């Protein structure tokens, strides 16, 4: 690998400037640390360079190259109800890592030592309330955390405790080295390298991510969590996460994210694959709070994510819960392939857009097995001049006897300059299936506001109360702490949208 591909920089403290610019986004600080970043641009050399940086085995490089060669034949999709100029993929850097001698993943066989987490990075996570090795939160009893900083995982807590149960919880890069059979077996098995434009891109340049394996009949006693942070300017984050729940197991997995306030768009194109075997259950919760950009959403995160779970075994259950409040653009459809008989898919979503944010999000429920059932509850909130679209597919294949689907998607408009759209695709190919879909669009009623005010509750509180009530069916699916965070985020994201 040639030297011209990377450079090291030490950044000045520009935190204050950026936070003042970003206004309400409290995660908008920037961490000053020495980083090792690839020069902008993407070609086959860069793909090879990423792989070699991570010391990857040949099969992983082959996977990347296959994806890259497919990706260059594709065109950026624009079918979603999102307006953005086509991105210049040569203008992003595809690798960035804090430079400290023993940060994980660089060499792939990292054993984390507390002192090895870069001090500035550790500070950054601490101020976000994210436990990493060495900070006080690391001892929080009910959660294990994989913290990812730009392209690399910097710390994974509670691994030893989990290892005793046979649970694997580590960074993706590490899994490539430590558990190559598992990774090889499952990578690309749910989201193929050629699934779509952004999935191909991710497969080619995947940075880091989390790898989870829950062995047979093990109920993971604590929530597993990954916290993503994009720090570097003009970098993309392309994490790859794989969660495997073996027969009869259970895991609740949480994902949180943030990025500093920047004035240039940052790209996030993740792929998540979840495999659920017989009688197993995975609960996957996301609170997405990527930087949405300034008032005009300049410089916000462009969030193009492919998330898919397969209920491979009978009686398996896959549940997605998401609270989407950040990003300038969100393109995301966490989906369930209900392959096993009696399997269950769930999708609970709150998507809030404000200012000029755009979200085109929803789910796909593909019913293949008998007696499969799915539930979709989607709550869209649009404020400011934002556009919020629910796009969802329910497909019941001829084999899916007695399949059931219930869909409820409600939109609430806050202000008269925003848009709320509902685009469901419903394909029923088995008559024993029952499908119900309901959608409503409304705003906060004047009578509701007056009722609250007459009880002494001020307008802002009344609105926040009504909005949270609107989202309650989804928030109750989130783990408690996350639900609180989501409610707070909602309040912050709505600030200034009503007057």
């Amino acid at each position, binding site marked *: 690998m040639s030297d011209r591909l990377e450079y090291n920089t030490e950044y000045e403290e520009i935190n204050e400037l950026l936070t003042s610019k970003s206004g309400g986004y409290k995660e908008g600080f920037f961490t000053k640390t020495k980083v090792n970043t690839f020069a902008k641009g993407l070609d086959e050399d860069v793909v090879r360079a990423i792989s070699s940086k991570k010391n990857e085995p040949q099969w992983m490089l082959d996977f990347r190259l296959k994806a890259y060669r497919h990706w260059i034949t594709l065109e950026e999709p624009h079918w979603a109800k999102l307006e953005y100029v086509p991105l210049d993929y040569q203008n992003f850097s595809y690798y960035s890592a804090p430079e400290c001698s023993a940060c994980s993943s660089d060499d792939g066989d990292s054993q984390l030592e507390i002192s090895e987490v870069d001090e500035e990075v550790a500070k950054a996570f601490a101020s976000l309330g994210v436990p990493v090795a060495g900070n006080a939160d690391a001892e929080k009893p009910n959660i294990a955390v994989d913290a990812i900083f730009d392209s690399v995982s910097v710390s994974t807590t509670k691994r030893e405790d989990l290892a005793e149960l046979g649970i694997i919880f580590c960074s993706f890069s590490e899994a490539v080295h430590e558990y190559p059979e598992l990774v090889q077996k499952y990578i690309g098995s749910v989201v193929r390298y050629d699934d779509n434009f952004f999935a191909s891109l991710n497969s080619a340049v995947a940075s880091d991510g989390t790898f989870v394996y829950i062995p047979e009949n093990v109920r993971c006693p604590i929530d597993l969590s990954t916290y993503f942070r994009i720090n570097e300017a003009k970098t993309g984050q392309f994490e790859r996460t794989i969660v495997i729940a073996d027969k009869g197991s259970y895991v609740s997995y949480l994902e949180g994210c943030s990025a500093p306030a920047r004035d240039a768009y940052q790209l996030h194109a993740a792929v998540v694959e979840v495999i659920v075997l017989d009688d197993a259950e995975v609960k996957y919760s996301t609170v997405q709070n990527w930087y949405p950009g300034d008032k005009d959403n300049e410089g916000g995160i462009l969030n193009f994510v492919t998330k898919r779970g397969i209920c491979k075994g009978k009686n398996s259950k896959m549940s997605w819960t998401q609270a989407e409040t950040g990003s300038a653009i969100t393109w995301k459809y966490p989906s369930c392939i209900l392959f096993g008989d009696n399997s269950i898919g769930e999708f609970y979503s709150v998507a809030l857009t404000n200012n000029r944010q755009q979200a085109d999000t929803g789910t796909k429920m593909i019913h293949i097995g008998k007696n499969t059932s799915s539930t979709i509850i989607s709550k869209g909130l649009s404020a400011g001049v934002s556009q919020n679209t629910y796009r969802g597919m329910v497909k019941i294949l001829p084999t899916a006897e007695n399949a059931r689907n219930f869909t409820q998607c409600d939109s609430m408009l806050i202000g008269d300059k925003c848009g709320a759209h509902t685009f469901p*695709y419903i394909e029923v190919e088995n008559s024993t299936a029952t499908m119900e879909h309901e959608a409503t669009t409304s705003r906060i009623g004047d009578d509701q506001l007056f009722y609250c005010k007459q009880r002494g509750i001020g307008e802002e509180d009344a609105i926040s109360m009504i909005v949270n009530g609107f989202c309650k069916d989804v928030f109750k699916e989130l783990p408690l702490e996350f639900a609180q965070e989501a409610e707070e985020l909602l309040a912050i994201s709505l600030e200034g949208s009503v007057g």
Partner: protein
Amino acid sequence: MSKSKHNIAVSVEDTVIISHYASLLANNDIVESIATEQLRQQAKQSLLTKGLPTKKDEQWQYTALDSWKKILFDYSQGGGGNLQDLASFLPSFASFKLIFVDGVLNQKLSDNLTNLPKGCKVVIDDKNPRLPSSQEPFINLFTLTCKQTIVIEVDAKAMLELPLHLVQVTTQQSIEATGLAINVGESAQCKIVQQLVSLNGQAKFHNGYAAINIAKNALCEQFVVQNLNKNSFYFNNQVINQAEKSTFKSHYINLGSAVARHENIVIFAGEYCEAYQSSVVLGNETQVADSRTVTNHNLPNCESYQLHKFVLDDYARGVFNGMIYVAPDAQKTNGNMDNRNLLLSNNAKMDTKPQLEIYADDVLCSHGCTSGQIDKNQLFYCQSRGIRKADARALITRAFVLEPLDSINNLEIKQWLAELIKQKLDKEN
């Protein structure tokens, strides 16, 4: 990155089909106006550049055209078949009838155009057919092949009690592309029944286009009864323009055709408009039935209501595609769209896209849709009261499918439609 994908070459098959339809009128002796000729040329060019729709087009992904592409339809040479059977297809209620056989007005069977109800004019214009310009492939095919427009003018304040009844009869394998232009004057009211029947097994390619303009305060109620034989193909595009405080009611009854596709585009061009749209779609064997609506709430204070019901048996495929669009500032909009489907066989398929696109906040919009079989509990309840299973199924199916007719106030028409639907259901069971 390769850009070639945008310019997929039109297939040879498509070129042959398009050229065929372009040639139908080219051999005519009629001298057409320059404007007409230009529109036909534009339509041909658009078709030749884009080709005919395939499953890759989002608007056509569920409507298979393979069987339609296999036959190149010509205009009927006239003559007509045995018309004695026609009487049994016609309703008994009083109406002003215009009967077209294979696209040609049959004056013997029709009421005399000089005896039209007061306040109403009908012209069959074959000199200046009204041709739309569009990007839609079947509208372009219409523009390419349309021979005549039935122009219906209803004077201001005229209250037509007698329904105008257009019957389009097929006796020969042929294409029919007759346009319909309906202008309802201020504060006028009218009912228009359009009935399509086949007297034998000859295939028809019906490709209709209707432009309906409803002036201030006026009301237009339209019934389309499509009962062509199962070798036929039915396409119909309707564009409805409503001035303030006007009302449009449309009832589409889909009983026949191998492939049928009916589309309403409703445009509210004034405030306080109301539109009611309903469909009853019965499909069996390998029928494909597609009913779609686009309702444009461009201005405030308008209301739209829709109920579309499909009953599908055997290998039938149903498609419902509805879009309620609410423009910025179209406050106090009330938009409601319901699609309910009953699947009677394991091989029937239903594809539904009820969409909302909303840019105003003070609105009440909703859509609902369900697909499923007959409720087993309902069946059992009937059986436990001594009703045979087959009868119980028929009872429940009928009750299900007749609901959209509830909004029809004219009892005679309502009964006639209910009877047609029942007959079709009974025949199939």
